């Protein structure tokens, strides 16, 4: 396929993703595979589409519900790509461990963060809700993530954050992992006081920090 044809196809793919047209997205991904385009490039085109979804969310044109539908369309596209991905060099951007801390079972924000991370190409270890600090530290040791994302909604569970940060320090992991926290009752002042790297008011903000850190670390 010539460069112009490729550009047109990828533009169409992006437009279909932005229009949440999963039938068209599947068809265009299949077409791209059949014409022999490298899987890495197709994935990159889809990521470009998701980046635009994030931009439109930040601009107030899209909403969290749109992020969910876009994530669903992206998942379908990945299903089509899956058989072709065996030989492709589609390395993950980075590994992120994510959890809602002990005593808290709220997970909507966390789940959206996870979905967007995956769509961006991050490898995500989602530990779920009501996760003890021991289990979180254990996951950091096991998976050596570049980023640790923690969430809590209830004020009673905010004390879990400094507990985890302290445990990371004691075990010598604090300098190796960026810690980002989120949740409605978290404030920026609180985040600063407990010494995490970032506080994200929304999942999209969290994605922004994650991308920034990874881009910085890669120079």
């Amino acid at each position, binding site marked *: 396929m010539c460069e112009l044809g490729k550009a047109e196809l990828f533009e169409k793919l992006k437009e279909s993703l932005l229009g949440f047209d999963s039938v068209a997205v599947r068809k265009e991904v299949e077409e791209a595979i059949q014409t022999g385009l490298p899987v890495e490039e197709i994935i990159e085109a889809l990521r470009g589409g998701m980046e635009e979804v994030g931009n439109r969310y930040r601009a107030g044109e899209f*909403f*969290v519900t*749109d992020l969910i539908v876009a994530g669903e369309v992206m998942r379908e596209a990945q299903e089509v790509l899956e058989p072709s991905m065996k030989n492709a060099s589609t390395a993950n951007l980075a590994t992120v461990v994510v959890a809602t801390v*002990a005593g808290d*079972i709220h997970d909507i924000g966390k789940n959206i963060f996870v979905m967007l991370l995956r769509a961006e190409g991050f490898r995500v270890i989602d530990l779920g809700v009501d996760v003890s600090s021991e289990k979180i530290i254990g996951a950091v040791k096991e998976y050596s993530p570049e980023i640790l994302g923690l969430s809590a909604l209830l*004020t009673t569970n905010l004390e879990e954050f400094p507990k985890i940060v302290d445990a990371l320090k004691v075990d010598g992991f604090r300098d190796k992992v960026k810690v980002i926290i989120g949740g*409605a009752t978290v*404030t920026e002042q609180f985040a600063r006081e407990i010494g995490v790297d970032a506080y994200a008011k929304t999942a999209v903000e969290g994605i922004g920090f994650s991308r920034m850190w990874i881009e910085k670390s890669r120079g």
Partner: protein
Amino acid sequence: MYNDIMAVYEGREGAKLVFQPRIKHWFDVNLSSGSLPKHYQGMYLDEIYEDLGVTPREVWGYGGTGSEFAGYYALTAIEGDDVEIWTRHSPSRRQSSPTEVDYIVTEYRTPKGTIRQVQRPTEHGTSLMNVEYYLKDLKDIEVYKHILQERNYMWDEARYSWGWKRYGDRLPLRANLQRAPLMWLMIGTMGFQRTVTMLWRYPKEMEELLHILDMDFDKQLEAYKGRPVAELNFVDNIHQDLCPPPYFRKYMIPFFQRIIPKIHAMGMCTTSHWDGFVKQLLPLVQETGLDGLECVTPLPQGDVTLEEMREGMGSMFLRDGIPAVLFCSWVSIETLKDHVSRLIEAFYPRLILGISDLLPANADVERLRLVNEIVKEFNEKL
């Protein structure tokens, strides 16, 4: 107190400001974990309200948890003859995080099939969260439609009588309606992400289900007709991330515009519980016809300023308005006092002061007395 609350409903000026915080969650968790401050140990929740000198709102009532006189679902659902409900759960209340044995499984068995919900208690057994929602696919929707079509509602006279004896002279009866159909699916029966993807994938089937849920409100209202209810509250738990403006315009406004005139015709006023981020929705709220909003949460916990709230709500009244986090020890007392003063200035006389939305379990309960002092001073000057 009764007349002061009625004055807010009726838009009358000159009445005393009422402070009616929700402290039941704080009480339940601390009672369960043995951490109630010494002064309050051995007291009933009602007595704590009295000791603090604030207006009761949630009390430990007839029927246990959730049976508050000033905000309960005052109806009993009567299921169809061919609908059976099966439930199993462990009655134990655990102190630590629950395990699978604590899960509560509920099944509705009907000729159209069975739907199943799994819930687990939160860490102190004081609330429940859904682990598995009733509605997972189109087949479940068909079962649920059958249940809804067969269901009727009955006024809960026993519970009302209990509450009236204890609070009838002090509090106008405020009862709950179910969440508006969209929010009911998102929070109660289908889950947020699944509701969003089902609306996108199966719009026709979801529209049908939403329509049947909408019609179910006519049955709820029929059961409330002629009852001594002053305020009907939709327990919507609105957050703009769950219900963004396009959803609000498409699903919520038409629903409210159909139902609210019927509530007004019954001589009742109506409110909705908005406890999330609402900045994008406030400009639309007056189109609903609601008389007031409950629990709108300003900065630093919510996403709106008091001025934005006032502007968006127009002449609607506000119940609550003090962010819960201001009752926590890491926020200065001056911040709390300043907020309360500005809130009163912005909303009185269209205000029933309260916490948005609950006193946190680790809050300093004595801060309620400080707020009460501000309210007393304000009322003395009237």
